[in-house]
């Protein structure tokens, strides 16, 4: 039977559009409703008069704008070093070592890093919508009074008025990084309750795949290490996944901003001693320094699970893998059976990927201990890739098939399909 398109569309909306069924502050909303009802009785007449005036304006103003807008066409764009005319929806992906520009006729520009994947999905007289599927881009938008520019990166939307910023989206980890150099942008997406505005010299990092969201640090952290290329799964790494990992604490608020002061010192919460808090602010060096000052062995015995996880993340981010391992292992030994202990297994797996067999064991522990954890798609995907890397083709094939059954659209689904076809 052939299902009509609308019926399929209805099913897709039912399945994929998550609806926030209750407002965050239902009690306040309910109280406001009652208060508004009480007040509104006296204002009905006023509203009727206002409605008539508004209706008149609603006809007059749009007509004026319509005449103005209809006199302009959508902007055009050119792609690549040869400046070929761009097509809406066409796939743009510079090869390794190449940087391609998407140059728009209004003077705006999107500079794609090598191996990034993007499309221009919509153009308008006053802007365009660009979809960054994976990778990094430098976006320079020329400011005009009615500019309507947006860049969609996975589930996120970055709205732009006129600014310069770097954007990175890692489809595997569902991690977004936005570093604003000038002007301001607004970021919306899953896990971000209300749009986050990011202004000059700020960096915003957010992870969509987990209930936790990571923080924002100062823009000087924005550079991407060239050593990212050649991750164990062979996927081009366009952002530093380690730095994008959110602290494994459910207390982390979504989308935090930290602005550096003019002298480069951190201005927010610099006096706080909680490592979890410092880590959220991106002060990883300070976390490591405090741990050393206190004495690592003492810290491992006395710090809370949150702080130990923060220490593990911070140490990993600054390259102190020995300290990170100690912190994660301490969480596992001191807080057995906790969610943090399971998460520590996942991060130990990530750190040990140079030894695939060990990493696989840690990932399997994480899966066993947190069967519905936030990192399950990652853990199963990485385990699958590592099994292939270690030459265990049979196990890798089984893992790939199982992955596709469980996560047919997951971050490693593409790799899994390649593996099932390959074997």
């Amino acid at each position, binding site marked *: 039977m*052939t*299902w*009509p*398109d*609308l019926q*399929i*569309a*209805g*099913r*897709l*909306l*039912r399945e*994929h*559009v*998550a*609806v*926030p*069924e*209750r*407002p965050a502050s*239902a009690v306040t*909303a*309910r109280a*406001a*409703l*009652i208060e*508004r*009802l*009480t007040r*509104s009785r006296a204002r009905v007449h006023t509203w009727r008069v206002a409605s008539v005036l508004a209706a008149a304006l*609603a006809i007059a*103003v*749009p007509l004026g*704008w319509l005449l*103005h*807008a209809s006199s302009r066409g959508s902007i055009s764009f050119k792609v690549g070093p040869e400046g070929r005319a761009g097509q809406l929806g066409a796939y743009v992906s510079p090869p390794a070592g190449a940087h391609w520009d998407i140059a728009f006729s209004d003077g705006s520009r999107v500079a794609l890093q090598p191996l990034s994947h993007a499309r221009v*999905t*919509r153009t*308008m*007289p*006053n802007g365009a*919508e660009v979809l960054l*599927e*994976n990778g990094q881009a430098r976006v320079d938008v020329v400011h005009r009074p009615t500019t*309507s520019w*947006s860049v*969609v990166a*996975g*589930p996120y*939307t970055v*709205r732009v008025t006129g600014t310069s910023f770097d954007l990175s989206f890692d*489809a595997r980890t569902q991690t977004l990084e936005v570093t604003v150099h000038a002007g301001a942008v607004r970021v*919306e*997406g*899953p896990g*971000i309750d209300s*749009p986050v505005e990011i202004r000059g010299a700020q960096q915003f990092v957010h992870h969509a*795949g987990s209930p936790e969201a990571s923080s924002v640090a100062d823009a000087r952290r924005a550079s991407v290490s060239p050593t990212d290329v050649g991750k164990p799964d062979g996927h081009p790494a366009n952002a530093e996944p380690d730095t994008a990992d959110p602290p494994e604490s459910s207390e982390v608020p979504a989308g935090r901003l930290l602005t550096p002061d003019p002298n480069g010192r951190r201005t927010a919460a610099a006096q706080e001693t909680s490592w979890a808090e410092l880590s959220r602010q991106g002060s990883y060096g300070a976390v490591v320094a405090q741990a050393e000052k206190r004495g690592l062995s003492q810290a491992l015995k006395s710090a809370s699970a949150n702080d130990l996880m923060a220490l593990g993340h911070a140490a990993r981010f600054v390259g102190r893998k020995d300290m990170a391992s100690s912190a994660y292992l301490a969480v596992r030994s001191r807080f057995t059976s906790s969610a943090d202990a399971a998460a520590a297994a996942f991060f130990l797996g990530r750190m040990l990927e140079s030894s695939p067999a060990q990493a696989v064991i840690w990932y399997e522990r994480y899966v066993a201990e947190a069967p519905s954890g936030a990192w399950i798609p990652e853990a199963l995907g990485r385990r699958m890739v590592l099994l292939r890397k270690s030459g265990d083709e049979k196990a890798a094939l089984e893992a790939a098939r199982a992955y596709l059954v469980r996560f047919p*659209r*997951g971050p490693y689904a593409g790799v899994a399909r390649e593996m099932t076809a390959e074997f």
Partner: protein
Amino acid sequence: MQRATTPQPDSLPGRLLMLPASATPERALLDGLIAQHPNAVAALYDRYVGLVRRVLVRTLGNDRDLDDLTQDVFITVVRRCPTLRDPDALRSFIVSVVLRIARNELRKRAIRRLVGLEETSGLGASMPHDAAVAQGIRHLYSALDRLDANSRAAFILRHVEGCNLAETAAGCGCSLATVKRWLARAEKRFAALARGDHVLREFLDSAREQS
């Protein structure tokens, strides 16, 4: 009209299916609402806020101004409930108010979009995490944006909320023949839009294969 036996109106996860009667006395609630008693208003809000928000988001395609529109729905329901004769029809009445407000909002947004005042639509916090699905959903709503507000509202009730034709007509406040005409028009227009959008076409075909 056939009614579901589900005791709690919002216990159906993500679907309206039908417009079932609540197990709690609707007559008492309606009397309280007519008197604009705060307890009745609070009970109405608690019982139906999930339904209202869900239909609004799915109809509009984003959660912008959701809290304000939700308030507008409840204000309208409370003001107009004295005209409601059958207390058991309260839920259907609320759905019809939601759709009327959503259709008005869609018309306003269409005008704003036409004159370049409306920003690109997006689901915001409701957007799926999977990038490919999110892209498909964006294109789907982009196509829905090009349907007229009546057809879109009928589509939401019939194909997203799962109402039968009679319930869809009641929710849209029109006759059965009219709602059939709206749905036929929506199907024809949507199919044409999907033919011209390869991303949407691929998204629908992929879902059809999984049916």
